[in-house]
């Protein structure tokens, strides 16, 4: 690959990786803002009244990503979060980290919540038990969630007082379809309702993704066009097409790795608990895959009409 080809393909790949990473960060931040403005509930959440034991049991059958918020007794806004797979939950945090799958006796608390310091670790005490504080709720210390506490404590799954909130995509439809509408209500206190962000944001993400995808596909095709002559020459010289293309894919991969470094480094250096290097890497891998697939497709289509065909 010549320096010019590397510059063009690398530059475009870098551009679309940055855009894709920005879209991913936007998505995370937007979700976090939504959660912050709605007491940590998504716009799809439902409030269910009835026997807590029965509701929790039913909600758990809706899938591992289902979040169940159990309001615990007491004056503080302490909720127990039951979720088997928390990976899709972008909690608004300004410090620390979110819950991990299967993590117990852990707490994420707002900045206004008093915590106990023991051996350099912070703990939140509730009802005679202590919970290690692993993160701080809210986009900043001044937050609508400053006085909120989230516990991860399956042992308190049925200690709820009041309605239980069940949150997942299509929560209402899924819950009602499986268990009927008795005691089920859609939530109504979302800050996002004040604007059309719930309509605009998915559209923006969709359009942004389309631009990035089109850009990545175009980059792959451009790479195929720029490397076409080299492939042709090597074919004339007796090189098999497959190894030549494989070598080009390897080079493209290397260029993609280099192009992916800035966004990854920025994500790691930012130290923002909401932005993980791994998620940026994942998005960059998708962009790189789109570039490579379109490169291979274009390289295949660009072959001169072969007499053997």
């Amino acid at each position, binding site marked *: 690959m010549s320096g010019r080809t590397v510059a*063009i393909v690398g530059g475009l790949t870098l551009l*679309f990786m940055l855009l894709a990473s920005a879209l991913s960060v936007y998505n995370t*931040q937007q979700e976090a803002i939504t959660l912050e403005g709605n007491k940590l509930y998504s716009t799809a959440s439902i409030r269910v009244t009835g026997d807590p034991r029965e509701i929790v049991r039913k909600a758990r059958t809706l899938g591992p990503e289902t979040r169940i918020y159990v309001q615990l007794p007491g004056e503080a806004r302490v909720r127990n979060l039951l979720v088997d797979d928390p990976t899709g939950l972008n909690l608004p945090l300004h410090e620390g980290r979110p819950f991990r799958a299967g993590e117990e006796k852990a707490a994420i608390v707002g900045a206004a919540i008093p915590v106990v310091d023991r051996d350099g670790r912070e703990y939140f005490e509730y009802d005679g038990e202590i919970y290690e504080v692993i993160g701080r709720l809210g986009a900043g210390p001044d937050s609508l969630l400053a006085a909120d506490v989230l516990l991860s404590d399956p042992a308190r799954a049925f200690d709820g007082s009041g309605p239980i909130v069940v949150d997942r995509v299509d929560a209402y439809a899924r819950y009602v379809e499986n268990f009927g509408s008795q005691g089920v209500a859609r939530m109504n206190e979302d*800050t996002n309702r*004040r604007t*059309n962000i719930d309509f605009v944001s998915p559209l*923006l993400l969709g*359009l942004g993704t389309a*631009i990035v995808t089109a850009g990545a596909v*175009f980059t792959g095709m451009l790479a195929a066009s720029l490397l076409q002559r080299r492939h042709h020459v090597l074919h004339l010289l007796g090189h098999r097409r497959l190894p030549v293309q494989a070598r080009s894919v390897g080079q493209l991969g290397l260029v993609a790795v280099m192009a992916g470094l800035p966004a990854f480094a920025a994500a790691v250096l930012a130290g923002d608990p909401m932005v993980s290097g791994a998620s940026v890497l994942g998005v960059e891998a998708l962009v790189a895959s789109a570039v490579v697939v379109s490169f291979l497709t274009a390289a295949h289509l660009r072959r001169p009409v072969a007499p053997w065909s």
Partner: protein
Amino acid sequence: MELVFDLRRNWLILTCKALAWALLAVTVFNIASFAQSTDTAINRSFSAEAETNMYQLVDRLADPEDFYEFRQSRTNLEQLGAFYDELNEADEFDLLSVFDQPVPVRDFRGNETFDAGYGTEGSVGGPYTDEVGRRVQDVKAVQLNQKAFDFYRLAVSEGTPPDWGDVDYSDGAVPVLLGSSYAGVYEVGDVIDGNFYTLPMRMQVTGILEEEASLYYQGEMNFYLDHHLLIPYPPSAEQFAAQDQVFYGILYFAMVNADIAVPRGLSTDQVLGELAEASDHSGFEHYAVANLPDYLLQFSLVKSIIQDNLALVQGIGVLLCLGVLVASGFANAQLLRRRQAKALAFWRLGYSRGAIRRMLLLTALVQYAAAAAGTAVGLSLLPQASPAGLWSAAGVLVLLVSVDAAHESHLLRRLIDHTSGRMGT
């Protein structure tokens, strides 16, 4: 003819460019429509006038027996009414009297989402038969005074707001407003038969509220009124018939349990002084005041959430714009590479730079038209109308066309200059 050859040779790049431009224009339209919607939300609920200190006024008759005893005296109630009136008429602050009280409605047409128990800690009661055999349902309702209506900038999308000066419960009728979710359930002009506390009431619908109408109630900034029935309070708590003492006894207490929005320049002592003065004038003493710092906190945090969203959306919009511009630049370079031989051939044949540029511009015009058409199709698929969005989308297309045409001309000029230089050596 050259146009056809050029399109056939470069259709893929041109299509990609047109597609990216159209997507960007539609994106910009959405961002502009969101900015407009944010503006509306801020103006409606988070204006500078609403950025006030908030106090909560409550009565101190918590004991049911004391409460009952107090209401047996007409004088007590008149004092309470005078206390309310003086506060309600005060210029220094706004007495925001709002009370969330379900109303039983006969032969209710709406579904369970209007039920008083829906989404609350209680359960949906549904329709039931009252003591005289009529089918009724308790629905969500809020009663409020004009100060609250104005302070929270509530407005109707259909019909008219109630004529606040004429609100009078004595003839058994009251104008009401309905939340936006009532659209299609009841219409402006409909009469809803219900009970307001102890009195049967004919509630005439004068208007439907705008969507997402909200107010601050009991510590909750996002208290939405879409599923509520709004009953206006009378302009004053002066007179009532002797037979309605029970009703007004309850009503006046509901009215006086209110929030007080105080301009930030007014100190707590001044507020307390105003209240003490009203108490002295009216003779009503059973009140207490609490500061509600949570209001300002929620006010600023909810507002900042809305603004954060806008900043985030605009940020990603700017990035996408830059991305598309840079990608278009790369595409132009690639296009010129593919057109190099042709451009130089025409140059050597004696065509002027202008003639060659016009030749290439013709293809570019086709791409611009395709981008505009794609944008039009994209916008026609969107449900929201936004004049500002249309202007922004058009603006971004004009910007792209200007930058693109200039860039293509620059690349061509550079190619010809370079070639001329080489030819001269």
